[in-house]
């Protein structure tokens, strides 16, 4: 198991380097002079030149690349061009909100999706199966910003159960109330994915020989599902959750905007509208690192679920 963990972690290193390289190239492929973009077209040639040397743009490209890598790996992505604070500060300030939202969405998704998918598989081609398929298809086909607005209209505007704006709150109850709607919005989409995969994966597992063996041992239906089937059905579910994280981030941007909630999504939007290139570049790295981390965690989860993965 320890060898497996080390192997997976080492595999993440080249991925991280490749990702940083792509970002470095992308940023330099963007047309236009960054110095002009930052100082505006009224700037004097002298001040532009000063800015270029400050940004290191006069160095040869390989020096810039090594410098970029070294800074990136030490967490230095420069300063935001609009706020003047370091990119790391900007990110760290809102990161907890995004992590909290993502974790809550994952929790809601698993809490709804796993039982619903399992139930559908156990009652295959009966009404629970059809109901779960309709629900999950609806969840999958509804764009995140549409469901966000619907949730807002129903629960915040019409029923007035929950706040419309979900900014930070010091009171823990208020904090959870603020989190509820955005998390529900992302959680429903997550649940739709998890339901579908759990159903099909569970159907496969329930047809396996070892499930028949377990029944021949006198294992009850509940124990059969919880102890024998669920764990074996979990690998495809974890795969989908890992892959879905990319979409989740995209959806979280929209969700944060609709609910006026602080987070990486709002930060991206701000950086885009104010053409804050250094901040954007830093955010690209943060998001990519986030995805790489999730994928590494997914790989590690396989090892925890299925002992055959770590066996060489």
């Amino acid at each position, binding site marked *: 198991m320890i060898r497996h963990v080390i192997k997976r972690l080492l595999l993440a290193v080249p991925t991280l380097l490749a990702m940083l390289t792509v970002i470095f190239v992308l940023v330099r492929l963007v047309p236009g002079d960054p110095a002009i973009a930052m100082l505006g077209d009224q700037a004097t040639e002298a001040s532009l030149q000063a800015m270029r040397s400050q940004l290191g743009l006069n160095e040869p490209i390989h020096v810039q690349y090594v410098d970029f890598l070294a800074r990136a790996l030490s967490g230095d992505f420069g300063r935001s061009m609009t706020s003047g604070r370091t990119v790391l500060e900007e990110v760290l300030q809102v990161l907890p909100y995004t992590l909290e939202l993502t974790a809550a969405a994952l929790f809601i998704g698993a809490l709804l999706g796993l039982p619903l998918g399992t139930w559908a598989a156990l009652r295959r081609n009966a009404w629970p199966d059809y109901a779960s398929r309709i629900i999950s298809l609806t969840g999958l086909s509804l764009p995140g910003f549409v469901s966000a607005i619907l949730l807002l209209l129903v629960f915040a505007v019409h029923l007035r159960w929950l706040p419309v704006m979900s900014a930070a709150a010091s009171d823990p109850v208020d904090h959870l109330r603020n989190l509820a709607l955005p998390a529900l919005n992302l959680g429903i989409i997550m649940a739709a994915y998890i339901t579908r995969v759990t159903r099909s994966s569970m159907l496969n597992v329930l047809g396996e020989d*070892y499930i028949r*063996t377990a029944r*021949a*041992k006198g294992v009850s239906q509940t124990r059969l599902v919880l*102890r024998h089937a669920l764990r074996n059905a979990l690998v495809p579910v974890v795969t989908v959750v890992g892959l879905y994280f990319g979409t989740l981030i995209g959806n979280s941007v929209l969700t944060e905007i609709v609910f006026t909630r602080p987070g990486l999504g709002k930060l991206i939007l701000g950086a885009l509208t104010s053409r804050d290139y250094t901040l954007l570049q830093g955010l690209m790295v943060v998001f990519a690192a986030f995805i790489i981390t999730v994928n590494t965690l997914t790989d590690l989860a396989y090892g925890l679920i299925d002992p055959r993965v770590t066996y060489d």
Partner: protein
Amino acid sequence: MTDPVLDVRGLQSEFRIAGRWYPAVRDFTLAVEANETVALVGESGSGKSATALSILRLLPAVGARIAKGSVMFAGQDLARLSEAEMIRLRGEAIAMIFQEPMTSLNPTMTVGAQIAEVIEIHRGSTRRSAMAEALRLLEEVRIPAARQRLNDYPHQFSGGMRQRVMIAMALACRPKLLLADEPTTALDVTIQGQVLALLNELKQSYGMSILFITHNLGVVAQMADRVAVMYAGEIVEFASVNKIFEQPSHPYTEVLLKAMPRVDRDSAGLEPITGQVPGITALPVGCAFAPRCPLRQPDCDRHPALAPLAAEADHVVRCVVRAGQEAAV
């Protein structure tokens, strides 16, 4: 003679295909005595496995049913027990082992945990004492270095060793009856011999009865006290193992024996059986074997009953020609 351990009468199990119910097991009557091994022999699709699964009520919940008959075991009719009562019985009084040792064990549970689970469920033992018993069982089925292997996963075992684990699991609660569904078919011949010898030995020490399903007549000779030959869901001949081999009386049993390679005969004398077992959706009205039978007569259009050969009440045959002739003499 004491009561049989298992007494199946007139069992009919059906599968639903395209909205209609078709019998996979028909008019199945058979008793297994205490500490006896009865072999169920037949080609693929003859209803052997469906019979065993019916006894333990493990047929799929949807699309399969026991339509008729009774399965008497320890004074209860298993065909009429509730699912909760069956759950208490499975793995406790009746255990079952399967053909595919490679896929019949849960890949995400250690073998120790899988054996201990049976004891925990049925005996209410603690995990600790159940694991101690699991270790004893692994030693009993002769897994080398059992103590180290207790926490290994199934993929770390060979096919033969996995089948030993299956046997240990089946024996965990000292069942009165073991249903063995082709337990050695997937194994190498040498391993097969070892597993069969182990089963015979454990049958004696545990005082079990075994219903042994196989299509391998060599295995039958090594294991069985009595043999039931199945064809198209029915028993066509039932007798002691010696009588089946020395005096096969159903034409199907005869061709089955002729189709078996033997070291004491020239392989040129092997006679393959022509034709195929009829599918359950296309059973003939009369004798199911008639279309392939060398002795076919006009009478074979009537469905024959299982009848004793003359003067031999313990040798029954489902054949108008054979049982009818002898009876007429």
